[in-house]
């Protein structure tokens, strides 16, 4: 079953996707699958093992199911400070 959600991109993921945000119709069973789909679409260099994932502004798990209307963010390795 497809769900519609929005995806946020930051840093090098944003550069690769050419946008900061997009609306996605998602058929994937979990957030890991969603990243794989988008990685293939945009050619992201970062493997999923180096990322974290957040849903609606809080860290989530890769095997969580995508929820309709949610805001998913893929978090590349951080470099603040």
């Amino acid at each position, binding site marked *: 079953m497809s769900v519609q959600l929005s995806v946020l991109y930051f840093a090098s993921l944003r550069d690769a996707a050419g946008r900061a945000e997009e609306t996605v119709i998602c058929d994937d069973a979990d957030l890991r699958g969603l990243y794989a789909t988008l990685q293939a679409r945009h050619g992201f260099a970062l493997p999923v093992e180096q990322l974290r994932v957040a849903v609606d502004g809080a860290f989530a798990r890769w095997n969580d199911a995508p929820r309709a209307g949610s805001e998913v963010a893929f978090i590349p*390795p*951080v470099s603040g*400070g």
Partner: protein
Amino acid sequence: MHGFRLAAAPFDIAPLREALLDPRAGAFASFEGWVRNHHDGRAVDGLYYEAYLALAEREGDAVLAEARSRFAIVDACCVHRHGELAIGELAVWVGVSAAHRDAAFDACRYIIDEVKARVPIWKRERYADGDAGWLHPGPVADP
């Protein structure tokens, strides 16, 4: 009690420090990260910090709450810049007050280490040679 804050423009540290003054506190440790003119041997012209604002504030507050529960401190505060920064500009400020200096130093170090490791902020460096790039440290953290 003071929290973690993201600042889109330069900020004054004097009021942040003053807010941590407390008659119970005998020690105050602070840390500042400044934009330096070199990184791994390359000359740097300036940098840009991007942040996932909502999650960064949540995670930054979590780091400060952990510091308060792990160390015998009175209070702690952290402010991190985002946007364009020039060489020498203040990128991050951490301040901790405590009765004794061990806790003040340890908590200050804990906060900056955790902020650098966990808070969703990304640095894009502009090099003097015209190149630029996002810093995404690998599984082994940079020294």
